[in-house]
């Protein structure tokens, strides 16, 4: 996925974030989200390694080896930010103080099951903080390619990969469109140009409903 499309998805995810929220971002595409927030809101970005109020990457040459995000990359601290130990960082998650987590995934089921931590026999990196974030963040937003690199659907009826957490995803944003996970199943609420319904149906591995007010995103 090119950077232009990745930025579109990040911009759409940024629409979910309001002033004052505590937000945890996964690595990769989710890290683009802060670039698309309006300037007049303050958001506390949370990192599992113990930062609340994380700011953007420092300029080259000003990196601090002891101020890094959970992925090990140098970051900065915004005004009002703070440090804590790992137990407190996860207390915020489990206690329900993290409003939104935005993460990538290998598969998502129509029920909102998330599978993003293991490919048996291939890649077994460990769950890190993904299970707690998926299970306990108030809102779980998945930002991912609609299909895997072989062209297989990643939005499926039942996940084939081991689950990170069941029934936890609220919103799925891909380059084709946006789905809400509801008690009735998936609802397609938005389409990204130039894609149409036929394309979404073709590349989605389960049935879904279509919102009466289907939005066609213009950016």
């Amino acid at each position, binding site marked *: 996925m090119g950077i232009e499309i990745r930025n579109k998805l990040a911009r759409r995810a940024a629409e979910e974030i309001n002033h004052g929220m505590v937000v945890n971002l996964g690595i990769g595409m989710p890290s683009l989200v802060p670039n698309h927030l309006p300037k007049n809101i303050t958001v506390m970005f949370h*990192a*599992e*390694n*113990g*930062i609340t109020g994380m700011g953007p990457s420092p300029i080259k040459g000003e*990196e*601090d*080896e*002891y*101020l*890094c*995000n*959970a*992925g*090990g*990359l*140098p970051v900065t*601290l915004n005004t009002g930010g703070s*440090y*804590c*130990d*790992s*137990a407190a*960082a*996860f*207390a915020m*998650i*489990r206690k329900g103080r993290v409003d939104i987590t935005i993460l990538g995934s290998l598969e998502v089921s129509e029920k909102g099951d998330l599978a993003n931590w*293991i490919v048996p026999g291939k*890649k*077994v*990196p*460990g*769950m*890190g*903080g993904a*299970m*707690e974030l998926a*299970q*306990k963040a108030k809102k779980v937003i998945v930002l991912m390619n609609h299909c895997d690199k072989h062209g297989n659907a990643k939005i499926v009826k039942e996940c084939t990969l*081991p*689950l*990170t*957490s*069941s029934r936890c995803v609220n919103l799925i944003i891909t380059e084709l469109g946006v789905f809400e996970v509801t008690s009735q199943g998936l609802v397609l609420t938005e389409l990204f140009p130039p894609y149409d319904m036929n394309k979404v149906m073709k590349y989605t591995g389960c049935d879904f409903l279509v919102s009466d007010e289907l939005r066609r995103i213009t950016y």
Partner: protein
Amino acid sequence: MKNRFEKMTTLENVLKFFHDGMTLMFGGFGGVGSPPTIINGILEKGIKNLTLIGNDTGFPHIGIGQLVSQERAAKVIASHIGSNPFAGQMMHEGRLEVEFSPQGILAERIRAGGVGLPGVLSDIGIDNEIVKKGKNIIQLNGKEYLVETALTAEVSIVYAKKADEYGNLIYDKSARNTNPLVAMAGNITIAEAEEIVPLGSLDPEEIVTPGVFVDYVIPSKGVNWKWAWE
């Protein structure tokens, strides 16, 4: 500087606590906040067959990752090994036992070990076959919880920004991470400090780890690896 509590010592003097087959708990997250001088001492002493307990296995050349990539570990209890390909490779070859714990639950297991509790109750991964495998399940207030057992270790090693003569510690920004928890959970806790200061130099309101939990303090020679982003 005085040494009234006999905690301030040298790397050479603490190396006697490290032996083959021991359990070793380490502070740090992706190598940030892992004590470089102690890890280098363990490497040079040739210690092997370790059970390592900590957040992750760092990178192959960074932090505790060096012990893993130089095949000094028999078992790892961690939440993530993805940034150290050697760990995954050895796990697949059956040469490294890996016990995964969700990151915050691992932190709580370490904390439990450090606060004298036998374990914690958790609903993280309660419906996940891999997480709940082999764990007791307890009913409480009509809900099911996993019993997550406490973790302690023969020796805990941590990295601090400053330590005083008594072993009171403060940390450096996100290098704090698991260090305050790990510091409490060791039967013997050794802190490596960037700076060692006289008693009374640290603001009592700012001390993160009370020296009660710290047995020895050694001076750090600083990080001897290149960070992944450099």
